[in-house]
């Protein structure tokens, strides 16, 4: 038995099945991301002044990823239009570019995640905070590359403990301090003493009070950042898998049921545009504000 309205539109709704289905699904997706955005608002507003580390993300990479998604959006709609104009070859070209954009987006996002998981904050027994990327570590020492991050000396009570009288200065900076802009996350406390270093910092493990990378557990901002971008990345992966199926084995339908195939491409395109819409909000909220 044939399923009705897979190609032709229903008289009462004016929609074919898949189109009604995808819009209902996208409505539920709006609620899902809406709930997470509202969580973001609560966390952002509830943060103490100067403690929201929004500037730790790489804005050029975020901008590049935004452009990659926009390019994929135009190729998705061009792919659909190509089929409408009976140009299957053009459709393959645009669909292929879209898939490459999806892979590019995920590649850039993966690099950003890697950057965060190798970015450490180390608090030493004598009340210093070293912030930088991990160069190497063993049982004796940890080596960080602060780059343009800062080494901040906190008042002992700010860290919730006093410096141990017998604490050794088990860290050495290999190059003289240089002037740099403060990391915004630490602006509020930078006045208590900060110095920026350009070369590697070696810290003895015996002098480390606490060491943690910039994973989702490090700060509420990073928790919501990884949640939102992780969920978005899952949507990118899901959309790319569907489009890859249509690009490969699913393309056979073009010969047997071309109009139904066009409908499928339209529906997958609607999902992809939604993924783009979510990122259009995520980018300024997470990277710029």
């Amino acid at each position, binding site marked *: 038995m044939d399923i009705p309205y897979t190609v032709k539109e229903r008289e009462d709704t004016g929609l074919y099945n898949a189109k009604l289905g995808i819009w209902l699904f996208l409505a539920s997706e709006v609620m899902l991301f809406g709930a997470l955005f*509202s969580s973001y608002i609560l966390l952002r507003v509830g943060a103490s002044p100067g403690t929201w580390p929004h500037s730790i993300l790489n804005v050029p990479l975020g901008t590049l990823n935004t452009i990659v998604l926009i390019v994929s959006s135009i190729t998705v709609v061009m792919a659909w239009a190509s089929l409408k104009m009976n140009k299957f070859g053009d459709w393959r070209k645009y669909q292929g570019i879209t898939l490459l954009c999806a892979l590019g987006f995920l590649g850039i996002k993966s690099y950003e995640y890697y950057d965060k998981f190798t970015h450490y904050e180390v608090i030493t027994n004598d009340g210093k905070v070293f912030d930088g990327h991990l160069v190497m570590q063993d049982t004796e020492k940890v080596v960080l590359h602060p780059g343009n991050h800062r080494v901040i000396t906190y008042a002992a009570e700010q860290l919730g403990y006093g410096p141990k009288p017998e604490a050794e200065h088990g860290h050495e900076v290999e190059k003289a301090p240089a002037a740099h802009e403060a990391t915004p996350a630490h602006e509020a406390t930078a006045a208590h003493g900060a110095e920026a270093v350009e070369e590697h910092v070696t810290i003895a493990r015996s002098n480390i009070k606490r060491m943690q990378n910039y994973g989702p557990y490090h700060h509420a901002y990073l928790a919501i950042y990884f949640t939102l971008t992780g969920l978005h990345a899952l949507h990118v992966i899901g959309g790319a898998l569907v489009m890859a199926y249509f690009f490969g084995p699913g393309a056979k339908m073009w010969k047997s049921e071309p109009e139904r195939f066009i409908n499928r491409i339209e529906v997958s395109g609607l999902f992809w545009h939604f993924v783009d819409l979510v990122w259009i909000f995520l980018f300024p909220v997470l990277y710029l504000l």
Partner: protein
Amino acid sequence: MSQTTHDTHSPAAHGSHGGHDLQADLRKYMIVFGALIVGTIVTVLASYIHFGSTSINIAVALLIASVKVFLVGGYFMHLISEKKMIFAILGSTVFFVIGLMYLIIWSMEPTSHIHIPH
């Protein structure tokens, strides 16, 4: 793969978009694409300008994002020419999302307003 044609059952002939309309649509898509790229660049540049308060900066960024969302939704997703059923679905969704956001703001009583710290 070589280009496949279906002369007798051409989708273009049966679809709601004729070939002439689609050519006009393609031009619109490219204009929207350009606007989205420009909007992205403007968003980044605006973030480096301090408009007097963080709230204004947030408003500017969200305004640009809203314009971009309108362009993608309106033209790429064809919402400017869609059926009433889709608007009914989206309308109810927008209602509940706004309700959700209102509940979030309302839950911040007694301050009753969002204060974005610098």
